């Protein structure tokens, strides 16, 4: 029995090596003194310096962050209200609408991207606009909202319906009930959804590629264009930086969560001790 477990652990360890090998290569070669991505010729921080002087990379990073922040925040607002609306709907309507809501999640990215491109191009031809920042933003909001709804809906179902009946009995209007009672209660779900939506937006390449046109470029699009030509180690540098930021964020979140967990356990123990 024990032997089998160690077998599983060795296999797991090898899988992690597989998952991290390319990332380690990426990071190591961001410090390489020549442009080669396979021959090590010495340590340098030049690529990091050049990164901050590279207008194309910096402007596309800015586009990515702007689009992701606006899209995820707008999506959080639309999605939260939509989830509350769906929650109060008859099942007959809610079911089909939630299915439509799931389409962008389940559908292949390329189909979402291509279908939105068709809409934007044909509407643009009729109304006289071109693919650009606005279409990119609309596309991002469209694929962000489902993630908000998917993380807010379960929180709504955990709510006690008596809670907002009580609020209304005590004189709250429906709107007051929503922002004084419901939204504070489902806030963790909204924030969780917002984070998922934001990372989806930052990470997205395919949908942006089809809906952004040629005037704006997200970071992913710049990276893609670079991989088609000869890539610069600046890209390794920026991915190392992003990796470091994410790693630090995750460690902080994890530490906070485990501390909260510990506090909860302590509370439980204290309560038990009191009883």
């Amino acid at each position, binding site marked *: *029995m024990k032997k*089998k477990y160690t077998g599983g652990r060795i*296999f797991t360890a090898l*899988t992690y090596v*597989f*998952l*991290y*090998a*390319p*990332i380690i*290569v*990426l990071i190591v*070669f961001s410090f390489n003194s020549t442009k080669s991505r*396979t021959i090590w010729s010495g340590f340098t921080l030049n690529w990091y310096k050049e990164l901050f002087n590279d207008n194309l990379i910096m402007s596309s990073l800015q586009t990515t962050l702007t689009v992701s922040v606006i899209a995820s925040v707008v999506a959080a607002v*639309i*999605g939260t*209200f*939509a989830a*509350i*609306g*769906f929650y*109060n709907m008859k099942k007959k*309507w809610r079911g089909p*609408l939630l299915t*439509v809501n799931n*389409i962008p999640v*389940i*559908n*292949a*990215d*390329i*189909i*979402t991207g*291509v*279908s*939105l491109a*068709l*809409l934007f*191009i*044909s509407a643009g031809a009729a109304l006289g606009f071109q693919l650009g920042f606005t279409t990119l933003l609309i596309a991002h909001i*469209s694929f962000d*909202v489902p993630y908000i709804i998917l993380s807010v809906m379960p929180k709504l179902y955990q709510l006690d319906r008596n809670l907002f009946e009580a609020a209304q009995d005590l004189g709250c209007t*429906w709107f007051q009930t*929503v922002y004084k009672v419901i939204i504070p209660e489902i806030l963790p779900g909204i924030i969780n959804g917002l984070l998922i939506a934001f*990372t989806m937006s930052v*990470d997205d*390449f*395919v949908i942006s*590629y089809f809906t952004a046109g040629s005037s704006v470029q997200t970071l*992913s699009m710049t*990276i*893609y264009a670079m*991989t*088609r030509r000869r890539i610069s180690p600046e*890209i390794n540098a920026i991915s190392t930086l*992003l*990796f470091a930021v*994410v790693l630090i964020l*995750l460690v902080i979140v*994890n530490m906070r969560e485990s501390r909260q967990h510990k506090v909860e356990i302590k509370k439980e123990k204290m309560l038990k001790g009191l009883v």
Partner: protein
Amino acid sequence: MSRNTQSVRSEKGIGDSWRTVKEFFEHFRKQSFAYPYVIWMGLFVVIPIILIGVYAFTSAEGTFTFGNFSGMIDYAPVFGRSLWLAFLATVMCLLIGYPVALAISRMSPKTQRIMLMLIMLPMWINFLLRTYAWMSILENTGLINRFFASVGVFDWINGLHAADLHYTPITHFQLINTSGAVVLGMVYNYLPFMILPIQSVIVKIDPFVIEAAEDLGANSRTVFRKIIFPLSLSGVISGITMVFVPAVSTFVISKLLSNGTVMLLGDLIEMQFTGAAYNPHLGSAISLIMMVIVIICMSVMSRFGEGEEQAVVM
């Protein structure tokens, strides 16, 4: 019935109907929160999908045609290759992902958290970059071939053929620009999508069920076959869809790791919407067929999930 009660009843009736009207409006007001998004979905989810259908059945002149589909037979090899490579990648993800998910779910809660975090961490790096990193590993002058050369593998192989006059000495293994590289890229990128749902389902299995089975004389293999695997099937199914759908539709992985030598459905669609061969009608027709294939695969999978017991027989 006396007059008195009748009048009360009619009064109540009026009150009731007034209340239902009020409730109707109340209800309307509450669900009206969803209306903006319903309109949004109509505009940016439903209409685009309909547009794909419209484009697929029209020609560039705007007339109805089946012509976009009749040319499709030329692309049968692309369809076949895409489905086959995505299938291989899904099977490999399952074969690697399941044992890993099982191993993780047997660790202590604290270790589990760290292990899951480590699975998710690479997903935060842009997937283009992750795939690009494989290029430097697999290239002809890449890290693997360099390693083999430095160990003397190529010299050794060339030495074996020294007597053969027609033999051209090799300097590298062809790793990149093969369909194997594309499958590797798919497995690498989508493996977390297999591990995470399976692990989340296995963790929730009641340990008492397993203990009960053990008490009743089941050995660990039987416990796995009869308890753990059937109960984890829903995770397996969502894992399979989460790997298969992006794998069958990718164009980035094939572009980067095969440099256009392995053409997939995604590449074909991408070509119709960007670049010189611009033909959104053909592109829509291909997208439509791909959607149908995905829907068929998913409904087969979900039926598989319903007949859990049948699936376990194997």
